[in-house]
C-alpha cells in the first residue's frame, strides 16, 4: 500500500487525508497550526505540527519515505511553492499541489510538480454542468469524444424495456448499468430504499420511475439522449 503525506490541513487537505485513511492508506498529515493537527489526529496514521517550508524539519520526520505528497496550502502562495520545491528536491516521486490561480499553477509546473489540481475551478465546472443538465448526475470523460454519464431515466422511457426504447439503434449509446431504488423496511421498521445496481442489463430489463442509467457513448450522441424528456 502506498503511503501519503498531506501538507496543509484546511478543508481540502483534511478531506484528502481522511479519505485516504478510510481507504486503508498510511497517511502523514502535516500543518503549521496545532489545532488543525489535533483535530485530524484521530483519523490518520500520524499527524504532526511543523513548518513544512523548513527542509530540516521535513527530513526529520522521514518525509523521503513518502510515495506521494499532496500540498494543499493553496491560500499561501509562497509556502505552497517553497514546500513543493523542497519535496521535489528531497526526491518525493509524486507531488500533487493545489493551486488557486493559473499563474500559481504555472510556477508549480516549472518547479516540477506532477499534478496541479484546482478544486474550486473543477467544482465550478461541475456545478455549471449540473445546472445546464440537471438530469446528469455524474460525468466521466473517457477521451475528448467519449464519456460515461449517469442520468435519471427520461420519463418517456418509464415502463419500457431497453429493447422497446431501442436505445442502441436510436441513440447509438450503450447502457452499461441501471441503478434502481428498491423500497424496503429497515430493521427499525422505517421505510427506506436500497440502491441496487444491475451491471449487465439485457434488452428485457424494464425502466421504472426513479431509475438512473449509466451510459457510455460519443459525446454528441449522449447529448441527444440528455435532451430527452
Amino acid at each position: 500500500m502506498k503511503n501519503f503525506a498531506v501538507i496543509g490541513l484546511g478543508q481540502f487537505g483534511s478531506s484528502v487525508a481522511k479519505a485516504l485513511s478510510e481507504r486503508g492508506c498510511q497517511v502523514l498529515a502535516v500543518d503549521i497550526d496545532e489545532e488543525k493537527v489535533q483535530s485530524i489526529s484521530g483519523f490518520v496514521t500520524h499527524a504532526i505540527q511543523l513548518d513544512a517550508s523548513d527542509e530540516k524539519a521535513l527530513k526529520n520526520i522521514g518525509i523521503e519515505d513518502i510515495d506521494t505528497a499532496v500540498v494543499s496550502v493553496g491560500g499561501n502562495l509562497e509556502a505552497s511553492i517553497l514546500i513543493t520545491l523542497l519535496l521535489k528536491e528531497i526526491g518525493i516521486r509524486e507531488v500533487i499541489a493545489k493551486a488557486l490561480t493559473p499563474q500559481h499553477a504555472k510556477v508549480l509546473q516549472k518547479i516540477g510538480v506532477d499534478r496541479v489540481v484546482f478544486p474550486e475551478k473543477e467544482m465550478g465546472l461541475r456545478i455549471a454542468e449540473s445546472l445546464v443538465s440537471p438530469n446528469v448526475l455524474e460525468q466521466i470523460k473517457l477521451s475528448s469524444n467519449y464519456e460515461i454519464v449517469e442520468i435519471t431515466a427520461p420519463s418517456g422511457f418509464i415502463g419500457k424495456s431497453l429493447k422497446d426504447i431501442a436505445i442502441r439503434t436510436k441513440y447509438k449509446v450503450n447502457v452499461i448499468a441501471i441503478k434502481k431504488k428498491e423500497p424496503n423496511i429497515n430493521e427499525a421498521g422505517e421505510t427506506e430504499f436500497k440502491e441496487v445496481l444491475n451491471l449487465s442489463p439485457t434488452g428485457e430489463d424494464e425502466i421504472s420511475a426513479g431509475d438512473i442509467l449509466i451510459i457510455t457513448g460519443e459525446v454528441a450522441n449522449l447529448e441527444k439522449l440528455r435532451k430527452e424528456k
Partner: protein
Amino acid sequence: METNNGNGNSKELALDLLELGKFYYLNERYDEAIKVLSKALKFDPINADIYYNLGIVYETRNSTHEAKDCYLKAIEIDPSLKLAQEHLDKLVGN
C-alpha cells in the same frame, strides 16, 4: 369534515393513510403513495413521520426538490429524526 384540527380522529385517520402510503410505496406505486401521504398531512400537518415517508417517495422518484422540502419539514417538527437528516445530507451535500 373537520381537518387540520389535530383532534384524535384526524390523527388516527392520518396514521391509517400513512400506513396505506407506505403500502403503495413498497409496491412501487409512487403516484398513489404521494397522493395518500399528502392527504394524510391534511389530517395531521405536524407529523414528522408522514413528511419523512413522503420525502422517501419523492427521492425514490428523483424528485429531489420535493424530497428536500419534506425532509426539512420532518426535521423541523422532530429534530431527532436521524434518517431524515441523513437523507437531507445526502441530497444537499454535507
